[in-house]
């Protein structure tokens, strides 16, 4: 199944122009509009223009990493349009003025007590810290917003070229609300997310749900083809699809091409020892976790991951978990090489690591360095760690501690033990 899914993705990318043209043609035939955004700035401008022309005051949004990626909410607010996140997790972090920490469970870092406090502040009344109760409150609050909103903004998990269908997968049902109740629907989607046919789509629906949450199928899969059709009681009068480039297209011929097959299921986050230690926020960009490093490099350039490229133990758990078999560790190694080749890291760091390589490969030098280091480190060791280094070396310790050279190195102890055993 995984090989089949990956093969479909690769085959689609090989003829991406053809499939996208079919998608665009079909959506336009159905009365929808397609827009093209080279970068976040253009994407924001397109969506804001649509909202302004529709005289929109409130926008309801279902969970979408793409609109997170382009910082859409701030842009809408600047235009006096209130964006409301309707995925429960996203709603919580919007109230907290934070960013998602996980692709699938964005508020996984909040306790129910913290959520209750946020709701109390918003509703100005006491709220019980019970998930069932909190969910009920969110239902009532957000139901009003769904019914009032002028415009619905979504991402898209897939788009089917043959039929002009945009596909949204949710468990809560907010994707259905957002695409049915407001009078305008805008979907923002990375250009790589197109799949050729309904037959292909069925393969992906099953593996997406299984990898993301372990379900056989997510609760709601919504297939949307353009605006409300004649005879339909409800549905938007306008439908827009925004196709987003932002560095994706350049990777069709680039080293990160494999990452274009990513379904955003989050499986690689859940198994990553680094992600589990540091959490999603520590990555500092829209997409966290191992795949997030690659996506950040794709969207914002290699420069932006000069440190993140090393936030992996290369254990390979991500590649094992990936439902489309993306070789994440291989690309991370290539990224590290590029960071080095292009001399992106500061010269002090590069020289230090060159020296370190010399020392580590020469036992005599290594033993000498250990002895010298033990003396030199003395003024800087506090509570068993080097918390601050002087001069230009201080950059290294600004955000991390350095373990000191041990009082007796392993080699010294080993020699002593052998002496004793004799």
């Amino acid at each position, binding site marked *: 199944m995984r090989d089949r899914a*990956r*093969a479909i993705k*690769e*085959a*689609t990318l090989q003829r*991406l122009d053809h499939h*996208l*043209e079919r998608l665009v043609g079909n959506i336009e035939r*159905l009365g929808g509009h*397609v827009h*093209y955004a*080279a970068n976040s700035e253009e994407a924001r401008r397109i969506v804001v223009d649509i909202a302004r022309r529709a005289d929109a005051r409130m926008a309801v949004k279902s969970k979408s990493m793409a609109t997170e990626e382009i910082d859409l909410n701030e842009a809408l607010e600047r235009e006096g349009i209130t964006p409301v996140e309707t*995925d*429960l*997790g996203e709603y*919580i972090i919007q109230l907290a003025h934070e960013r998602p920490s996980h692709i699938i*469970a964005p*508020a996984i870092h*909040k306790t129910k007590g913290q959520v209750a406090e946020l709701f109390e502040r918003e509703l100005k009344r006491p709220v019980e810290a019970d*998930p069932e109760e*909190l*969910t*009920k409150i969110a*239902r009532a609050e957000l139901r009003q917003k769904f019914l009032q909103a002028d415009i619905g903004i979504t991402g898209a998990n897939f788009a089917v070229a*043959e039929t002009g269908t945009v596909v949204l997968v949710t*468990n*809560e*049902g*907010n994707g*259905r609300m957002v695409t049915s109740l407001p009078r305008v629907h805008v979907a923002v989607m990375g*250009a790589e997310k197109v799949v050729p046919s*309904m*037959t292909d789509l*069925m393969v992906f*629906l*099953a593996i997406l749900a299984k990898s993301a*949450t372990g*379900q*056989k*199928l997510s*609760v709601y*899969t*919504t*297939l*949307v*083809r353009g605006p*409300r*059709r004649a*005879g*339909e*009681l*409800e*549905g938007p009068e306008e*439908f827009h699809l925004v*196709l987003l480039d932002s560095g994706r*297209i350049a990777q*069709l*011929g*680039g080293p990160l091409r*494999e990452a274009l097959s990513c379904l955003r299921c989050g499986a690689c986050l859940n198994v990553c020892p680094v992600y589990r230690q540091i959490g999603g926020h520590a990555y500092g960009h829209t997409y966290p976790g191992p795949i997030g490093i690659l996506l950040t490099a794709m969207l914002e350039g290699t420069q932006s991951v000069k440190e993140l490229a090393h936030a992996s133990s290369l254990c390979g758990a991500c590649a094992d978990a990936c439902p489309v078999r993306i070789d994440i560790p291989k690309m991370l190694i290539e990224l590290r090489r590029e960071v080095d080749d292009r001399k992106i890291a500061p010269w002090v760091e590069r020289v230090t690591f060159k020296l370190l390589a010399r020392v580590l490969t020469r036992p005599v030098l290594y033993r000498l360095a250990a002895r010298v280091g033990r003396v030199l480190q003395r003024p800087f060791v506090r509570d068993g760690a080097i918390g601050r280094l002087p001069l230009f070396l201080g950059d290294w310790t600004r955000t991390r501690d350095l373990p000191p050279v041990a009082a007796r190195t392993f080699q010294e102890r080993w020699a002593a033990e052998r002496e004793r055993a004799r």
Partner: protein
Amino acid sequence: MTTRAEFFAKIRGELQKKPALFVASTAARPEHPVAQADTIRRELAERWPATLEKFRVEFERVAGVFHRVASLDDVAPAIESIAGERGARELVSWHAASIAGDGLSRALTARGLGVHAMPAGEAADAAERARLRAVTARADLGLTGVDLAVAETGTLVLVSGAGRPRSTSLLPPCHIALFDRAALVESLYQVGVFLEAWHGDGTPPGTGAVVNFITGPSRTADIELTLTRGVHGPKEVHAIFVDGGLRG
């Protein structure tokens, strides 16, 4: 702003740089989806009991409530008992022609339920549309038909269209779906065949813009990974299987 021509020129330029990572093909689509869909229906006419049983197991696994009644006459009492247990009074439904005809509405009204059937087509004006939306948002129960019931996953597939509003299965806290063996399919692959057929030369059950796959009640685990139901969509989903068929 980027134009369509610029966008596609860039894609073609990049594709020339690296034509392929490995030899790959997309999924093999059914050659004659309409004929194949007919074949699936014909074959299931023989072995539907096993498929129904599999559907029941999967549907219950995703917290759906399964009911089975002998004939159309038994549907109203079944709905009455669901309503009774929940103190529900108001029911909104697809237009009768999209479910099982007029008889059911009359039987439900006779049993004391407030029945609000949606119109066969568009609302006359914006005010009427707003009124129907308010009725749906207030209703306790939403009654719909089912276009495909998928045994592999316990999924109900509903096609929107005239007389089949999207919100009937979405806004009320309890969704009740009626189906018979004509809707049963075994797998997601078979759903794909039907979708290919409907989008090709076949006749889709509805002519609306949306197809919804519904697999159990609305759920979330966004607060401390605790599973809770009914966050936006219905808290309960009931599927009533009618042995004698919905068309009498």
